[in-house]
């Protein structure tokens, strides 16, 4: 069974918490996980990954947060072949903003454009909902497991 890489981009630490929650849910079902903050180095390693979950918030005017932006720019510049990668996508946002969850949509688009295959629904947590991101992370991770390629 491949390791599931859980890769997060964060501004205030909430996406990091969600990454931990997703890892816990997956480990509870017997998967090995590795958590890392998105970076240029992670972008370089991506072509060798088979399974990943991307977690990111949205910052400012629909932009990616601090740690995700260099990762994204490296993807666009280097254009690695990601046809061997299957990924899940979890976004954190606030529907009071028109750019609600632009961050995860931006990442999904870039990854898919490089050949990666998204599995499952894109989770989009809404801070305005009052529901805890942790709860959504755990329940969403459970649904993802049934879809992970053997």
């Amino acid at each position, binding site marked *: 069974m491949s390791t599931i890489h859980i890769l997060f981009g964060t*501004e205030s630490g909430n996406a990091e918490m969600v990454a931990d929650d997703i890892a816990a849910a997956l480990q509870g079902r017997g998967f090995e996980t590795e958590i890392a903050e998105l970076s240029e180095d992670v972008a370089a390693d991506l072509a060798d990954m088979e399974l990943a979950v991307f977690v990111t918030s949205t910052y400012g005017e629909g932009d990616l947060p601090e740690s995700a932006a260099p990762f994204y720019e490296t993807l666009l510049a280097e254009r690695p072949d990601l046809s061997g990668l299957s990924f899940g996508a979890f976004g954190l946002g606030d529907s009071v903003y028109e750019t609600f969850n632009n961050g995860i949509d931006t990442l999904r688009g870039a990854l898919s454009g490089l050949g990666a295959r998204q599995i499952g629904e894109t989770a989009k947590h809404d801070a305005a909902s009052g529901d805890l991101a942790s709860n959504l992370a755990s329940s969403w991770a459970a649904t993802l497991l049934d879809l992970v390629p053997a």
Partner: protein
Amino acid sequence: MSVAPEVTENLFPWNDEEFQANPYPWYERARRIAPVHYAEEGAFVVTGYDEAMQYAKLPCMSIVDPSGEPHPWDAFGNTVLSLDPPEHTRMRRLANKWLTPKLIKGYVETTRTSLNEILDGLAPGQVVDGHHDIGVLPTHDAMCRILDLPKGDVDGMFWALWDAMLIHSTDPGEGIREKAIAGLEFMFEQTERLLEEKKRNPGNGLADELLQLYSQGDLTWREALETTVNLHMSGGPNPAYVIGRGLELFAERPDLMRDYRDKPEIRSKFVDELTRLNPVELIITRFPTEDIEIRGVKIPAGSCVKFPIGAANRDPAVYDNPNEFDYTRTGDAARNLTFSIGTHNCAGKALSLVQIDAILAIIAERYKRVEIAGEPIEVRTDRLVAYETLPLILH
């Protein structure tokens, strides 16, 4: 000019003592007859929830007064208080990574330890100050842990900040400028002295990181110092007011104190509702960098726009029975503007909320009843509120 252009009276008597003691009747009237109102001091005052949520966070809403006139708070000219993106982003991120939810779980242990030590030292029936002893001291300790600074002169810093903030009143009177400058100078002297000591005896806090970035040339001295002062002064006062109001609520409503103790699942919403009714900083002030229009009122670029937080927080269009405490509110009514919104929202919001919860939980779990043992006295301007004294007995 306003949504009701015939309204030319002064809807906001900022310096009137009755207004400062309870601005809500004035906010309510203004929201009803002129929800976007050009006040005689030359500011547009916006009192509706929807307008505040939509417009206060727009990228064009600058925190920088374009008049360029020297102001005592230029002392913080290199911090998030005085910058817009992208310069703001660089400075904000310095604090963000020290205030993540994961790290806050550790810091709040300092808050709990500090409070429990204070409570352990109380004799039965002893009068304790709910604001100072239960609110300010433990939260200041937590901030000092984050920065890795010694406790220092807690009361001196508290009242120096109060004095410094007086200049932010809409219409500060005579002598206020000098008082504010003295407050700022005190806070800067205290903090700079602690930073100089830290250079000789480094630690592992945020203040150390700022000093390290300064020594590497990644921050100027003013950036490092001003950011440290901003955090050092902010740890106690803001959560302490909400904690004091929570303790008064426990005294007035023992049923709510029991709910807090017996139903941990309601605590998050309880604290949110407490912050809705009891903002500490009372006005969000912004300066649009382009012409905007709010509810038909044209606001030119460079204007001063004020969003009184308490007005948005009690908008009857959103909140049923807005003046009543109800922790079961949902949807838009479960949100409020107490920590502001957008780029300049409070960097300490998560830290404050966790601490307020932790402190109220300890009180609710350790005690059966809160008694108000003397008249609570608040100090207020149109811009800020704090307690002078909140005498309580914990039974």
